[in-house]
């Protein structure tokens, strides 16, 4: 702790990011952590039936979101993408509205929590069917290419478990054959509910699958937002420039049980988790920015107060919203009036 701020500053390889961007990533990570905790807390309080945490994914998502070009790129997320959703512009109020299943939720209380959608921001609607959205992501990338909209790309995310699905294979293969502007970001947290990576695939890295599709595959440290940003930025830039798809594997970890319905004590040891917790990306990145002199302790504290206040306000505001009405069940089945029997 004897180093000067300036000296510390030299220690941080900031991946070309400005102070402002670095702080934005930290803020995203702190907010993620806070909202995650809030979901589990509301569930314990009996206020919501279900929550699903992304603890351990904060860094990869903050980094990937920073590489995403708002207004141009499209995000095809999966249910563990809280930080990406926030990072591309969704608000805590939207997140809480979904957790509470209120009318203000974009799906109007239809979807499970964590099934983000926001067309204005380019966040695609997803189902719960693992890997089902990957082909859609490819379709959007195909539309970009077809319309000649260079400079636009799709960020398609999944966990490592999803790569076992046939639809993931078909998506990646099509994107490769057609050289589409898309990045497949696989957040490898080592587990698919209780199934460890080695029961999911025989290769050590998801990225090892890339050459079989004729694609570049890159592994990055998903506990480092800067490392993830750098790799994702490069991959997205390649896509923007017409260089085709990339598979990026961000190694991270799932600190919590799969969801509030799961109990991970049956299938993994506390020690393994504790080992990973020591590398918890959130305090580590905070510390790194302090040590690098990008922020000071006071700002770090303020950021945390800030995201807590924001989370509290969003919680109160969302909870105060009404449920969707029973009648709303019947709307938006198809365009216009809907009757399977047409009178």
């Amino acid at each position, binding site marked *: 702790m004897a180093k000067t701020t300036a000296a510390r500053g030299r220690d941080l390889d900031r991946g070309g990011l400005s102070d402002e961007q670095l702080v934005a990533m930290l803020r995203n990570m702190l907010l993620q952590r806070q909202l995650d905790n809030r979901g589990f807390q509301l569930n314990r309080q009996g206020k919501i039936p279900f929550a699903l945490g992304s603890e351990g994914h904060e860094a990869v998502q903050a980094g990937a979101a920073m590489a995403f070009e708002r207004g141009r790129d499209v995000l095809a997320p999966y249910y563990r993408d809280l930080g990406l959703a926030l990072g591309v512009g969704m608000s805590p109020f939207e997140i809480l509205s979904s957790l509470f299943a209120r009318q203000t939720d974009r799906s109007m209380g239809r979807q499970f929590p964590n099934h983000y959608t926001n067309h204005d921001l380019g966040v695609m609607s997803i189902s719960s069917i693992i890997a089902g959205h990957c082909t859609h992501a490819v*379709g959007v990338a195909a539309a970009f290419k077809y319309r000649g909209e260079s400079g636009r790309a799709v960020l398609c995310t999944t966990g490592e478990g999803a790569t076992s699905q046939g639809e993931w294979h078909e998506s990646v293969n099509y994107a490769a054959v057609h050289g589409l502007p898309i990045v497949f970001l696989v957040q490898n947290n080592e587990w698919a509910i209780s199934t460890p990576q080695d029961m999911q695939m025989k290769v050590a890295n998801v990225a090892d699958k890339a050459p079989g599709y004729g694609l570049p595959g890159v592994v990055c440290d998903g506990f480092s937002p800067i490392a993830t940003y750098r790799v994702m930025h490069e991959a997205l830039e390649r896509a923007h420039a017409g260089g085709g798809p990339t598979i990026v594997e961000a190694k991270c970890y799932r600190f919590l049980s799969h969801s509030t319905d799961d109990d991970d004590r049956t299938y993994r040891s506390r020690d393994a988790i504790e080992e990973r917790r020591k590398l918890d990306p959130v305090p580590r990145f905070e510390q790194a920015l302090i040590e690098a002199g990008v922020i000071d302790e006071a700002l770090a504290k303020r950021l945390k107060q800030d995201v807590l206040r924001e989370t509290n306000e969003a919680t109160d505001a969302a909870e105060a919203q009404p449920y969707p009405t029973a009648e709303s069940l019947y709307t938006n089945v198809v365009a216009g009036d809907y009757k399977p029997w047409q*009178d």
Partner: protein
Amino acid sequence: MTATTQQQTGVTMTNVEAVRTTLHAALVRDDRVLVMGEDVGARGNVFLITKGFLEEFGPQRIIDTPLAEASIVGIAIGMAMEGLRPIAEIQFADFIYPAFNQIVGEAAKVRYRSNGDYTCPLVIRTPYGGGVRGALSHSVSIEALFYHVPGLTILAPSTPADIKGLLNAAIECPDPVLFLEHKKTYRSVKGEVPGGYYTIPIGKADVKKAGTQLSVVSYGYNLHQALDAANRLEGDGISVEVIDLRSIRPMDKGTILESVRKTRKLLIVHEDNKFGGIGAEISAMVAEEAFFELDAPIRRLAGPDVPAMGYALPLEEEFMTSTEEMVDAMRELARF
């Protein structure tokens, strides 16, 4: 390119020509329209429906996909969510099963699950049905596997004019449409097709022959047999009304009930297996709504409950309902 895109006056053509010319006109009309599937490019589709399209519209719009049906539909869904108007082809209906998740789990739910934030204006075309020695896996009817699914529209027109009007409607439709083409009618059915652009409203059945003593609801290849049967019975003084269902979901309750209330008898004819087929819902609806107006039990004439027609001719013939069987069933019900 021989498709008569600019066709302004009525002409006679086959069903396959109606599909072909309507697709062609859509490609000319709207550059959001793409055609994708296996062998739709240089081969021009296995029934030559898209022959010449690749040369005319290029590989960006006429896309030969890898051999992977889930992705054909799934990628088309993504294109549709992004504002294009993809027309995805499944080479034979029998090969649609791998895409079931994308159709039922995804396409049908895009609008609903996002409460309209995203929509999915997608057309999936596929040739279905038997009678062409297609054996176990090139003959199936698939409509009953999908017609239970809210969010999907299912069309099965049987004449060139209806194909043109309903395929145009499907392409205009802001939601996913499964468009079924009976392959035995491709070249065996001919008819007059009006010139110019027109659509036929989705969800409307069509009385193809008026009659008074018996209502018959059918679609696909069977529809043409039913019309033949009805015409033959005309000679015997039996007046049969034949309704072409055309739209399987949504279904046209009004037209069916109006007819049944007049004739007081209903025969449903479809090629697909009977148990749980389209006829079940039609029968149930009519029995619910017009129970006291029926003079006889509703009858369903449908494919037998076996997995498929076989390849050997006797197996195919045994599976398919013959026109004679239809004549007999109509006569019997009319006499009831």
